[in-house]
């Protein structure tokens, strides 16, 4: 059974409201998970549990947390992600808009990159949303 993009957003919104204790109105596609919604690292595990249950999918840890890339000396120089690193991130996370990050690709900026819209696009690829 295929789901629509609206249904994906509604379920993602419900999961985030429950996991983060935020209001529905705060969960907009543009909202960043960490900066705007206050998600901490442990919340991502909770969110993954909820999304897996809600959509009946499996979310491998690496697909949403590319720590291995961000801690790999091959892809990081002086605290900045290299061009090769960005290419690798884009390959791993095609659902994320990296344009802002590319302007100042410091590793510490990565944690506040992911938006609600990115989460939805990720789920859409998993469930084949129309």
């Amino acid at each position, binding site marked *: 059974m295929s789901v629509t993009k609206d249904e994906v957003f509604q379920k993602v919104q419900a999961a985030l409201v429950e996991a983060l204790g935020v209001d529905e109105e705060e969960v907009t596609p543009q909202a960043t998970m960490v900066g705007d919604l206050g998600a901490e690292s442990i919340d991502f595990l909770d969110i993954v549990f909820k999304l897996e249950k809600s959509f009946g999918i499996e979310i491998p*840890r690496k697909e949403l947390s590319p720590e291995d890339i961000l801690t790999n000396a091959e892809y990081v120089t002086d605290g900045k992600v290299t061009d090769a690193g960005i290419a690798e991130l884009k390959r791993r996370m095609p659902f994320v808009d990296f344009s802002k990050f590319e302007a100042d690709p410091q590793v510490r900026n990565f944690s506040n990159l992911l938006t609600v819209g990115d989460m939805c696009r990720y789920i859409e690829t998993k469930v084949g949303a129309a």
Partner: protein
Amino acid sequence: MRWFWIDRFEQFIRGKRAVAIKAVAMSEEQIDGYSPGFPVMPPALIIEGMAQTAGLLIGEASGFEQRVVLAKVGKALFHFPARPGDVLRYSATVLDIKTDGAMAEITCHIGDRLQAEVEMMFAFLDDRFPAGPLFEPVDFVAMIRTFGMYDVGKTADGEPIELPPFYAEAERVAQAAYPPVGSPVAI
């Protein structure tokens, strides 16, 4: 005071479900200052007892290879206070176990009455944390034996569960240091 917030397991089904009881007594320290004039069991310590029930259930499922810590309480509803003299029955059900954490729901009943409903998430400590078990193996074995985990513990197929080899060996070494019960001791 020992940080044991359950008294014993009454049921333990590997990776699935556990029931533990906690008898609340007026003599316990936590009753003293929490709500003077109206002695109750602090809800935070009920949550701790639930976390111990569910956390041991989840840890045992991996042979205690995973270091399980309470990460988040997603939902906690308390319907009425638990008071000295009450026997709290914590029933923990595993909802999901993944590579980096687990979810469980736990209820507390006093008699037939539903006293509390809690959903909690556990994280497994990874290699960002110092290696090694969270507890001294011998102390840990003594604790879970005291809780009766291996008296009532079964697999989902009804077979008795056993201590993982690492902990069984720690127990054997510790016991070897003491003479058998009943043997004469030179003074």
